[in-house]
């Protein structure tokens, strides 16, 4: 059997995505929308977390910004959801630019804590400024009758994210981002404008999540601060990228499909241990397959060989102080 390259896998995914709304039930469409939303989140996280290697615990901040910008536009001015989504994406970019400039001066654990804290600040603001956001009561939107247009929008964005990642992986830009991950000082000394590229990757990884935040609230018909800034959305996204393979083209796709199915089964049968199960999956992935399913696939000969993660064995933590 021939090995599958990224394009082959994408083609299969595209056909599958096209078939679902034609023959699938409402349930299948609804499940696929969730899967695709997480797919977009995972590909976005992969840009900053996988390629540049910055551990980002605050992606949900942009998801929440998008959710609130979109929901408020729809709620107050009856804006159609696709225009609200564009506005949300724009808001995500506008928020990410100065934040990236400031936060990316931090490295390693400082960046992780800073972004984690930022998401919590925004959640506190969403709760506290209840004159605008209706606080803990949340905002109720009119439910969409037909989910298929929403599905098409999410599928299109997911396809764009996959193609962008594939293009990135084969470009000088992608190599530059990987160089930042491997050794930022060395990259800088080779003339790579690390600050500009990092901020670019950060902003690029914030736009789609903001759009997804808006679509997610339209999909649910409801948004409140714990939903918009949910840490389980953050954890699930990261788990998908980690499980599939960080900094790879196919990793987020594999991770999102596997984990979405697992989550759906868990959520349907054992909702009370849902969070712990995702946590256990992350732990197992960290301990046993830190290079992800993609690496297993390449070793087994099913996937075409690509760029493995962490080529250079990373320095032990103790030596870096």
């Amino acid at each position, binding site marked *: 059997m021939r090995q599958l390259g990224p394009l082959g896998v994408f083609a299969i995914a595209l056909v599958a995505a096209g078939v679902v709304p034609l023959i699938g039930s409402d349930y299948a469409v609804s499940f696929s929308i969730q899967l695709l939303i997480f797919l977009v989140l995972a590909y976005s996280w992969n840009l900053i*977390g996988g390629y540049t*290697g910055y*551990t980002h*615990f605050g992606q949900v901040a942009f998801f929440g910004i998008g959710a609130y910008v979109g929901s408020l536009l729809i709620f107050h001015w009856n804006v159609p959801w696709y225009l609200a989504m564009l506005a949300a994406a724009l808001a995500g970019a506008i928020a990410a630019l100065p934040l990236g400039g*400031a*936060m990316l*001066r*931090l*490295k*390693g*654990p*400082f960046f*992780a*804590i*800073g972004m*984690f*804290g*930022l998401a*919590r*600040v925004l959640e*506190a*603001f969403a*709760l*506290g*400024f209840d004159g605008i956001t209706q606080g803990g009561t949340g905002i109720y939107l009119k439910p969409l009758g037909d989910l298929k247009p929403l599905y098409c929008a999410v599928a299109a964005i997911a396809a764009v994210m996959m193609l962008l990642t594939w293009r990135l992986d084969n470009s000088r830009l992608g190599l530059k981002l990987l160089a930042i991950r491997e050794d930022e000082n060395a990259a800088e000394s080779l003339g790579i404008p690390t600050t500009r590229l990092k901020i670019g990757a950060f902003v690029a990884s914030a736009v789609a999540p903001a759009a997804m935040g808006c679509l997610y609230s339209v999909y649910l018909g409801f948004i409140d601060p714990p939903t918009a800034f949910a*840490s*389980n959305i953050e*954890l699930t996204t*990261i*788990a998908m990228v*980690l499980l599939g393979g*960080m900094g790879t083209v196919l990793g987020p796709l594999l991770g999102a499909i596997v984990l979405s199915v697992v989550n759906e089964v868990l959520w349907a049968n054992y909702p*009370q*241990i*849902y*969070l*712990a199960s*995702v*946590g*256990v999956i*992350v*732990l197992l992935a*960290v*301990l046993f397959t*830190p290079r992800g399913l993609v690496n297993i696939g390449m070793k087994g000969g099913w996937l075409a060989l690509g760029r493995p993660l*962490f080529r250079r*064995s*990373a320095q*032990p*933590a*103790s*030596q*870096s*102080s």
Partner: protein
Amino acid sequence: MPVTELLIGGILLGGVYALMACGLNLIFGVMRVINFAHGDILAVAALSTVSIVVGFKLPFWLAVVLVPVGCALLGILIHMLILRRIESAPLIMSLLATYALSTILVNVAILIWGGGYSGLPGVLVGSVQLFGVNVSLSRLVSFLCAIGVSLAVWWLLQFTRFGRAVRSASQAPELASISGIAVDRIRLATFALGSGMAGLAGVLVAPAFAIDPQLGSRFIIKAFAVIIVGGMGSYPGAILAALLLGIVEVVGSYLAGAVIGSAFLFLLMLGVLLVRPRGLLGVGVRI
């Protein structure tokens, strides 16, 4: 604005933050691991205290002894099963592992104790006069215990053989290892000590606050804020910053309401991260 009252309230609140943040800081200093599960160990400790006192009708002082020991054992388990195995992995792996551990602990706590709030009635009730201000006894005792233990651990680090070994393992692991210090065992002991400190903080929080399984995520960001403002790896910095942030939180809540007030802490943390990343007393830890 009732200045004395706010100041005393803030300092008392800061005591518990100090104990918690010192444990977190100690673990970071020696292991270079940001323990996202630190707050959840505190929450589990607080909930266990409620179970011991209300459920089993045992005296409170027994919880003060038992729970921190239990948390230290939990810490040993976490270190042996997870953290020791990813010591040489990239930093992102330990961040992800403790983040995952945190959600597991929250979920397990919800399964055991339910998602609602519980409290500890009948322990350390009443109040005392302090500088003309009524102070609740539970908060005062919590503060004294927390600061006492934080200072005792500081003394341990500064003046004992074990403390010197911990500090050398933190500053120069290779040299410590060459000098005959079992760095692996020091790491294990540090993680156990840090987790035990989180456990004691949890016991002390129990009589003074409403407790639920999500308590950890609220406390962990405050502990992060404390160690960042104080300086990562700096022990006196953490104690100082804890008291400072206690005051900021109490004054902020008084001025702007509880929700926005607690956001002041994070804004202060973000500000310090951006302007002076090594913190007030930090020596500049390079990662």
